[in-house]
């Protein structure tokens, strides 16, 4: 048994990047081989270097909410192809592939749960679905979640992960920026907190709408956050971009986010913050 453990521990270092992907993962930052079991226990943060792995929406909410508290609400709204959009392949084919891969109709998961015992309404964007891009469905589900929070009288916590508005729905995607903003008005009117957590990456139309009008904006360490993507900026100005440009810590330095918070601290951080903002005694 002891010998068995010894060999399993050695394996990742010896065969970094090779087989057994179901058992372990290589940290893209420090190249350390990490057991998936350990990685999961650490909320998918590298225990060696602190690199925050990207999370799909389900894992995100597992990490954020009290265990077993999540009740999904999204899932009934499905995307269509209003523009008959055709590029290198038809939009419906892209959607079908992303749906098969993620088991989700579109790039967001919403519902209710508790954080430190406090009821919340949540929305997590799913970067694994078409880069978390925002089309009509993402906009609609986020709008409904925000409206639910206002009706139910809970805080709203949103985790952003998105390359921006979805090209394949063109101006309709763009309009989701205004639609989600409209839907968030109910929270402000009822004095309910809206917290957004910006994860890697959060760019484009998401940064320029609901993600950055939260009462409190948090960011995950190292997350790329910006309006224009670094490549677009480089092409426009033809200058070298400064070290750490558009990373969470850079934005904290420039006064754009309230805090950069390690994912392993999210639940405790939000428990404390939401408790005070809603003037309640909480703690789990």
């Amino acid at each position, binding site marked *: 048994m002891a010998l068995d453990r010894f060999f399993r521990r050695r394996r990742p270092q010896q065969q970094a990047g090779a087989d057994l992907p179901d058992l372990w993962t290589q940290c893209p930052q420090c190249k350390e081989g990490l057991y998936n079991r350990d990685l999961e226990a650490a909320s998918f943060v590298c225990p060696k270097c602190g690199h925050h792995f990207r999370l799909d929406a389900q894992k995100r909410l597992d990490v954020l909410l009290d265990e077993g508290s999540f009740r999904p609400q999204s899932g009934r709204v499905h995307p269509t192809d209003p523009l008959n959009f055709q590029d290198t392949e038809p939009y419906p084919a892209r959607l079908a592939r992303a749906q098969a891969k993620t088991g989700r109709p579109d790039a967001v998961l919403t519902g209710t749960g508790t954080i430190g015992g406090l009821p919340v309404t949540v929305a997590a964007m799913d970067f694994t679905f078409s880069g978390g891009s925002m089309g009509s469905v993402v906009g609609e589900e986020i709008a409904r979640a925000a409206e639910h929070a206002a009706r139910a009288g809970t805080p709203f916590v949103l985790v952003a992960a998105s390359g921006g508005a979805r090209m394949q729905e063109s101006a309709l995607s763009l309009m989701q920026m*205004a639609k989600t903003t409209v839907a968030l008005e109910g929270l402000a009117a009822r004095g309910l907190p809206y917290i957004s957590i910006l994860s890697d990456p959060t760019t484009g139309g998401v*940064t320029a709408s609901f993600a*950055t009008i939260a009462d409190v904006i948090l960011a995950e360490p190292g997350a790329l956050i910006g309006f224009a993507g670094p490549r677009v900026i480089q092409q426009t100005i033809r200058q070298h971009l400064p070290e750490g440009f558009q990373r969470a810590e850079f934005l904290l330095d420039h006064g754009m986010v309230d805090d950069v918070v390690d994912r392993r601290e999210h639940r405790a951080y939000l428990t404390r913050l939401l408790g005070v903002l809603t003037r309640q005694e909480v703690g789990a």
Partner: protein
Amino acid sequence: MTAADTLTKLEARVRDLETTARETGQNLDAALTPLRAEVQRLRAEKSANLSRWDRVQLARTPGRPTALDYVERLCTDFTELHGDRAYGDDPALIGGPARWQGTPVMLLLQQKGRDTKSKIKRRFGSANPEGYRKAVRLMDLADRFGLPVVALIDTQGAYPGIEAEERGQGWAIAESIQRMVRLRVPAVCAVIGEGGSGGALAIGVGNRVLIQENAWYSVISPEGAASIIWKDAGKAPEAAEALKLTAPDLLDLRIVEEVIPEPPGGAHLDMDAAAQALGEAVSRNLADLAGLDGDELRAQRAARFRALGAFTES
């Protein structure tokens, strides 16, 4: 000879005759009138057959009227107010109180510049965060003084620069959208050239959104889409088709209420006529909204944008 060649030839003939008439003092109207009519007919025919990419080209035609060209023709008493009270003044997004065909309004204008020097100064209408923050400030004033907001949209997009990102380009756009959602005065927006992405929507949350016949409005520029899809900005014409970004497309999608006609061949061929049509459309929509109170205006605007999107529900 193609219709385009015929048109070019006729246009040249009209110009020659006009020159002759001016220089010699002769009255050549008998010859000119039918020629002019034929030119108008051919231009209208050409307009009807434009591809989406042709319209994008028209929206970018160098002589196309800018926001200030319209303001000069339609407004009196314009007082440009400067600065965001925090960092600077952005010449790409300007504004201030004025009378729009006599009606007191607050103008928000994306101004591209009319010559090389002013185009560079105004970054071709691509605003920095301080532009959007100035817009927020002007909307505060509009609410305070009960002035309807008239926004003229003409930008390829918010400026993608290092400093823009440092000062929170995304934040500034989001705040401008939110401020506009909260307006208690009427807001009428018109896309007069290019409506590029969030940088355009930042001042596009109107009770009514209008677009000129040859303007475009999209989530991304055709070049931007082409470089993402095909890794080749040269495929912009294909991207323009896919993006359905023209005025008729947007009317079909209910993203705009109204398409404002342009003179045959485009707004640049007759600025006065283009201004007249724009002025009439904006004034008419302002008059329609004049009877609503602050709560009703805000609710109508919220409902308008809340309803946008295409999906099915199981």
